[in-house]
């Protein structure tokens, strides 16, 4: 299955890689630059030129569902069955709304590609981060508005702080990925130059001894010591053999995943906060909570679908490029590095964009 690829196929792969990089760079740059399309200081989130077609339809659907929410919550005060409508609308809104770097869809997809994760883990990560996002929104409104009866202004400041923190986390997370993947990529480059590196002696040695270490340490102390080893292990074995399922499911997997969940999930969606406060004002806070959770479920489904697409696309590419050969491995490591860089770009873009934007909620 893996040995000889026709030049044509390799050509296609190269094109695909270029397209991916362009698409990805465009999306990232879009977020960095569109904050400031014409040097004006006050632009906010990117406004898209081509609002027709699919994007226009998505926008229209989102707005439609979102706008129905307030009237449905109002109706639920007197008519209990309206709650079901509310839940359905929230769910649908979540599905359509699960977009935008703030919601971490692109971050999750890039993370999965960079870290050679499985589709199953992609789905789990999507659901966990969406659930966390909902919980953060509920907690913010629950504590500040319901318990403390804080004003919108105070809530907004809290939101703003969390937002900055979350963008910073994405950038940091991206930085770490870039560091790890960059090293791996450089090693792959070095390995590819003299010999089309097949499994070399040092690699075998390192990988296995570290595995041993990991297990030994794990029984006594966990967390940090273990994490450190996992890290080293990752760098060393990265360049010459592809991921095996045991590596992915291995210890430390959930810790790595937790960083992704936290990074993406800590930022609440402004829509959810507005719905919660509105529900609270109507004396139906529980309906707001239910709506927020359903929104989260809808979001999770869309993000999970994208995660699966990203992972499968990468798997197909890995198979076609013969990831175990020198060139193919190099290609895949480069791809992973690119995905890591994308996470960093998203973080930096959001962080820089924040300074000029997002205040609108506070107004």
């Amino acid at each position: 299955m893996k040995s000889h690829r026709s030049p044509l196929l390799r050509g296609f792969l190269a094109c695909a890689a270029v397209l991916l990089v362009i698409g990805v760079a465009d999306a990232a740059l879009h977020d960095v630059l569109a904050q400031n399309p014409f040097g004006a200081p006050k632009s906010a989130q990117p406004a898209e030129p081509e609002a027709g077609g699919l994007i226009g339809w998505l926008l229209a659907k989102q707005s439609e569902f979102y706008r129905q929410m307030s009237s449905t919550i109002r109706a639920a005060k007197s008519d209990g069955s309206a709650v079901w409508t509310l839940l359905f609308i929230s769910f649908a809104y979540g599905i359509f709304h699960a977009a935008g770097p703030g919601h971490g869809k692109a971050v999750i997809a890039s993370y999965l590609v960079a870290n050679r994760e499985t589709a199953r883990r992609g789905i789990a990560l999507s659901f966990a981060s969406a659930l966390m996002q909902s919980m953060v929104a509920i907690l913010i409104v629950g504590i500040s508005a319901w318990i403390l009866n804080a004003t919108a202004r105070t809530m907004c400041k809290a939101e703003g702080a969390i937002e900055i923190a979350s963008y910073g986390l994405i950038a940091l997370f991206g930085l770490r990925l870039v560091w790890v993947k960059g090293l791996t990529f450089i090693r792959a480059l070095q390995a590819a130059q003299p010999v089309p590196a097949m499994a070399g002696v040092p690699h075998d040695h390192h990988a296995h001894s570290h595995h041993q270490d990991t297990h030994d340490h794990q029984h006594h102390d966990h967390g940090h010591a273990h994490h450190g080893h996992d890290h080293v292990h990752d760098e060393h074995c990265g360049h010459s053999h592809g991921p095996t399922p045991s590596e992915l499911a291995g210890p430390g997997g959930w810790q790595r995943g937790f960083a992704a969940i936290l990074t993406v999930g800590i930022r609440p969606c402004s829509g959810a906060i507005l719905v919660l406060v509105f529900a609270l004002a109507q004396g139906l806070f529980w309906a707001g909570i239910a709506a927020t959770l359903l929104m989260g479920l809808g979001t999770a489904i869309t993000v999970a679908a994208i995660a699966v697409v990203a992972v499968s696309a990468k798997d197909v590419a890995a198979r076609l490029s013969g990831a175990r050969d020198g060139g193919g491995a190099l290609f895949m490591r480069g791809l992973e590095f690119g995905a890591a860089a994308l996470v960093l770009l998203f973080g930096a873009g959001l962080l820089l964009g924040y300074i000029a934007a997002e205040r609108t909620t506070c107004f």
Partner: protein
Amino acid sequence: MRALFGYLLVAAMMLVSGAASAHPHVWITASSELLYAEDGSITGVRHAWTFDDMFSAYAVQGLESKTKGAYTREELVPLAQTNVESLKEYAYFTFAKADGKKERFQEPVDYFLDYKDAVLTLHFTLALKNPVKPKQLVLEVFDRSFFIDFQMAKDNPVKLVGAPSGCQMKLERPSDGTATAQKLNEQTFTDGPNANFGMMFANKITVDCP
């Protein structure tokens, strides 16, 4: 081939994700008055912006009021203050051009909030830094980030107060995407670097005077 397809899909998804992040969370129904001096020059704009019920509930959250669920103009003074202060950063979402030349506004005056039927209306007056007497005035109201969706009111969206006779007002609403998008292309072409993408959601008021 499948890889290519997959990548295209991923790339497309990411592009979409970047784009769709811009969707409104706040809806404003606006009505505006253009203010004229006696000599027929335009001195400023008076806006009345009614927020949607969801945002209104959010904005009054935690505010103290004598009567539960009702807020007097006095009780809303601090909020109105915050509003106009925050609006400054966004140039009050109001962009004027007199015979093609950009005009600037002073800080808002006479601002206050009304709370009626569970929605807030923000009133404020923007005076032009320099009153103008152009043949054509173009006033646009929009949020280029599209976080706020501006719609001009159904009835009496624009009033000309004290305008010289013979002035003609025309309002273009950002109805559906396609028509405006085409117009946008032309405009982008003609306006060069001043063109702006968020414009497609703009409410464009044009006043031609003889």
